């Protein structure tokens, strides 16, 4: 079953001479771990914005969980969660206040003005998540006094608290140290393995996409390559010898983009 279906998607920003996303088509199955890679300005974030209903498309068809993202935007939003490139936290609030606000927007708990007044289940869930992700100490401190890494961890907790069917991760580990990165991936993998959450990832750390189910490379607004990481490593090696493949996805990715540059 396809959870994300994108067909001939085009997005041209107002005043732009050419489309940022130009006829992109791909699909992602339920529970799949999908990596959407590409250089800066390739159209990754634009595509994610359309998929997450925050940007309108110029043409094409996009469906999430079988629902059209424009006609059923509100229902689509119930199925998705996002950790975006630029943190979307209220820096005037504390970490916990941000989580509480999010939980209320998603109808998980009614909003109460203080943490102490929130239901027991909420308190337990937040405290546990904070411990797992390592922000327990900072939970009641204002966001603006916390490091970028801490803010990222908070975004992770927030995006997962409503258990979305599809989780969009737009460069989620940017600014995280190695330990935090590992912790994040452990948690995301646990979520995925336990509940079959579909993951849509964009990242510049190509090693993070090494174990995904499918990789698509977008370049200059067009899909340039789509395959499994192993297939990609094999096909891009340009070695005629069968079964010889590049050692890593990053090698394949870099080699592919360099070849594209030479062609253009």
């Amino acid at each position, binding site marked *: 079953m396809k959870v994300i279906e994108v067909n001939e998607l085009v997005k041209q*920003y*107002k005043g732009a001479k050419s489309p940022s996303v130009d006829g992109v088509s791909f699909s992602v199955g339920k529970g799949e771990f999908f990596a959407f890679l590409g250089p800066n300005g390739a159209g990754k974030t634009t595509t994610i914005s359309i998929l*997450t*209903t*925050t*940007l*309108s498309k110029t043409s094409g068809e996009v469906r999430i969980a079988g629902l059209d993202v424009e006609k059923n935007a*509100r*229902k689509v*939003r*119930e199925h*998705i969660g*996002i950790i*975006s490139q*630029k*943190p*979307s*936290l*209220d*820096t*005037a*609030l504390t970490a916990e*206040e941000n989580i509480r*606000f*999010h939980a*209320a*927007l*998603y*109808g*998980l*708990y*009614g*909003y109460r*003005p203080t943490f102490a007044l929130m239901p027991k*289940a909420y308190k*337990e*869930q937040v405290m*546990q*998540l904070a*411990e*797992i992700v390592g922000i327990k100490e900072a939970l009641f401190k*204002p966001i603006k006094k916390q490091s970028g890494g801490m803010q990222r961890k908070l975004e992770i907790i927030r995006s*997962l*608290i*409503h*258990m979305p069917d599809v989780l969009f991760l737009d460069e989620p580990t940017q600014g995280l140290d190695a330990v935090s990165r590992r912790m994040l991936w*452990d*948690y995301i993998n*646990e*979520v995925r393995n*336990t*509940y079959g959450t579909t993951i849509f990832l964009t990242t510049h750390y190509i090693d993070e996409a090494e174990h995904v189910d499918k990789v698509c490379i977008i370049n200059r607004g067009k899909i340039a390559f789509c395959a499994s990481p192993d297939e990609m490593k094999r096909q891009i090696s340009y070695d005629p010898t069968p079964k010889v493949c590049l050692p890593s996805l990053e090698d394949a990715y870099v080699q592919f983009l360099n070849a594209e540059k030479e062609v253009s």
Partner: protein
Amino acid sequence: METALNLTGNLAIARQKATAKKPSRFFREASTVWAIMCREVSVALKSPSTLAMSLIMPIVMMGMIGGNLTQNMAGGLGFDLGLFMLVGMMINMLFTATSQGVATLVDDNEANFSEEMLIAPVSRLSIVSGKILGSSASALASMIGTLIVGAFMGITLTLGQFAAILALSPLICLSAGALMMIPIGLIKNRKAANMVSIIIAMPQMFLSGAIIPIGNSTGILKVISRIMPMTYSLDLARAAVYNGMPEYGAVVMFNPAVSIAATVAITVACLTVGTFFYARSEKNR
């Protein structure tokens, strides 16, 4: 091992909540309005500059401008300018502070916090309404500040008069916020939002009768005063305050039913158009 157990336990709670019977659409929207409203109040309470402005503005507006006008221009009006101005300044505070609060939607946008609200499965109208009602809380603080400054100047309201203004304040704030939503739906940066906020507030303060009576205005000034949303909110508040007083006829311009109808109509129209602009500007780039 312990982490794995924690994870599984936490995921179980999360899944249980996520798959539990969802509350009704109405409840969720109301809960959203409440959450956004509380967030606005919380942010305002943590902002020293907002708190300072809530105290300084009434002193400047009521204490300085109001005091000066009362001392120098009150003669021959046929009513007490002090009380007239106190009510005017209180409503003006509600209007101005709510408008400024709504203008912070641009800040939310610049800080990317808008994404958190826009990606949530809630209506844009609830987001906008929550923002306006939250801003109204700060506006109420300024209004009460004005009342206190007025008391220091010897101008007071009875408890009944204050209660009447308090009862009307949600509608008045909603109309102020709704009006501000129209430009805010089209503006993307803070500087422009501040400018528009002043452009909307200043003419209303002088032409809708907040500090200067407009009952005898003629020509273009009369036309402008009649299209100012605050004119009707002010007249409604004065109708409530002056009810049963001999000055009622000299102060109140319209039948309260007309003022209510005009305020509600302006609020609904502005809220609809403003929300449309806001939702469209976020998506249609």
